[in-house]
């Protein structure tokens, strides 16, 4: 296994690190491996088992780094379960590895809280044959925190997986979310809502790899960028040559509320099979003036109408979630967050 100190720090020419270099999300000096604490993880509804740390696949600098600092893996028992997992991170540098293995059906919401200077989160999971798993991740970290998140999900034959992310917290976030469709008829739906405010910098890199025929994936990333915030969405969709009859689509949409906000949306496709449907789209735009006028004609002030459009835009990210449990949790937290922001 490659040691972190022997690894080469990637340059910004790499797709993955172009907008958020590793040096900006490392907890200190990139030439060091600091001491890192474990986060507090608990759940009232689901059984959690702490085991010795199970290494992540070491294909990139973030995973190599996390392999060296993580102490333990928390396995979430998620068969026929429905519930919430709370991860509370505090202190200078904190890291957690959560592993989910599902063989039946489950709906799980993972909440990220706390005020760490730096938080490393690894999420891994197997959605086994014929299983159905829906996972929602709500990032409500302090506005000063830096987060590095890496995901590795395997979706097996006839399994369906939903992964929703609501990103509202943290000052600088780098998420590298990878899913592999390993078996025929595997299905993945991924939804991401980003609320950029202040000087938040939120970078989502999403890799989806279709390795078998008759698989399908759908990705939607909706980002609202206000103030001087910056949202980045980069997609990498790969369809192997044997993955015929794949149906895959990626959509990145950015709503820009301020002239100083920025958004990048870069979907990339690598399609090696010829009998597939693969699509991608990206759009960045300010508030739609006809929507604004319509709401104002119903008595809402410009600020109230803008808030309603923003909330709708983000809420709509999760409309197509099949899991009521996860969808309602995501939409409720989002509404509370936006109302708190409106109040100030």
């Amino acid at each position, binding site marked *: 296994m490659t040691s972190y100190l022997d690894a080469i720090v990637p340059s910004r020419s790499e797709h993955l690190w172009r907008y958020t270099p590793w040096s900006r999300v490392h907890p200190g000096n990139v030439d060091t491996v600091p001491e890192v604490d474990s986060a507090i993880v608990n759940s009232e509804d689901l059984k959690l088992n702490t085991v010795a740390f199970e290494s992540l696949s070491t294909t990139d600098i973030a995973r190599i780094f996390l392999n060296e600092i993580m102490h333990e893996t928390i396995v979430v028992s998620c068969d026929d379960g429905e519930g919430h997992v709370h991860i509370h991170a505090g202190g200078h540098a904190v890291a957690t590895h959560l592993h989910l293995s599902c063989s039946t059906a489950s709906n799980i919401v993972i909440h990220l809280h706390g005020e760490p200077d730096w938080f490393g989160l690894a999420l891994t999971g197997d959605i086994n044959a014929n299983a159905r798993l829906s996972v929602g991740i709500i990032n409500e970290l302090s506005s000063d925190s830096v987060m590095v998140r890496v995901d590795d999900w395997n979706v097996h034959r006839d399994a369906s997986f939903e992964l929703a992310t609501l990103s509202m917290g943290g000052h600088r976030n780098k998420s590298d979310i990878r899913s592999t469709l390993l078996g025929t008829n595997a299905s993945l739906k991924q939804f991401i809502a980003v609320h950029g405010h202040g000087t938040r910098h939120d970078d989502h890199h999403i890799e989806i790899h279709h390795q078998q025929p008759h698989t399908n994936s759908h990705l939607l990333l909706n980002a609202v960028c206000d103030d001087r915030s910056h949202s980045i969405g980069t997609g990498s969709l790969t369809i192997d040559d044997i993955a015929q009859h794949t149906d895959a689509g990626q959509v990145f949409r950015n709503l820009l509320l301020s002239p100083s906000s920025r958004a990048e949306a870069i979907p990339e496709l690598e399609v090696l099979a010829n009998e597939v449907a693969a699509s991608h789209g990206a759009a960045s735009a300010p508030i*739609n*003036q*006809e*929507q604004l*006028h*319509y*709401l*104002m*004609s*119903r*008595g*809402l*002030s*410009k600020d*109230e*109408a803008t808030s*309603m*459009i923003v*909330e*709708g*835009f*983000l*809420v*709509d*990210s999760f*409309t197509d979630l099949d899991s009521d449990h996860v969808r309602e949790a995501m939409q409720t937290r989002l509404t509370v967050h936006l109302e708190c922001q409106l109040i100030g």
Partner: protein
Amino acid sequence: MTEVLLHVENLHVSVADTPIIQGISLEIKRGEIHAIMGRNGSGKSTLANVIMGHPAYEVTSGTIHYKGQNIDDMEVFERARAGMFLSFQYPASIPGVQVGTFLRKSVASVREEAPSPREFRQELNEAMKQLDMDRSFLSRYVNDGFSGGEKKRLEILQMLLLQPDLALLDETDSGLDIDALRIVADGINAVAKETGCLIITHYQRLLDLVKPNVVHVLIDGKIVESGGPELAIKLEKEGYDWADALV
């Protein structure tokens, strides 16, 4: 004396430097229903939009008074709060915003005192029943994926709840089948006695159900003829060619 709600005097309006309305004068009193008929592109929707304060339209001369007050400087939400309502020809869809939430916030914004949740629910139930609308409407996103008829019903539902003093109805009858047209017309008639209404339409069929006091014919941004309901019947039979000579 009946209150004058809307007084438009020699109004000229341009969009992107192109003159659309070229000298319209109009007065609507409380309890009156005025209908405006005209060809496509004659300026009917522009008139409704400019009265409501759409920022894309520029009033180049003339005045609009509402309840005796010049409303040139009023923003669109202030006009709504003052009791003006526009039923849009093409209502915008707002994905992610549920109809129920939208209606509650609109009513709270427009009324000086927001109704209690219980009162609002009761009002909403009655209005939806009147318009033969299913409660599942409330959890759908505003106009998102709605048919043309559903959009128009939602516009009229809003009108019933917002209880405007002046209602501008821009082709509210388009996209409606016969049954839906009757239901929508009943909704308009329910508010018309206490309201001033300006109905923009292409067809006599709505005016069979909602009786106008005055019908205006609009040609090239000008009202060329005003009269009683018989004018709409004449247009239905003869078209607009005869009105061209009046420009």
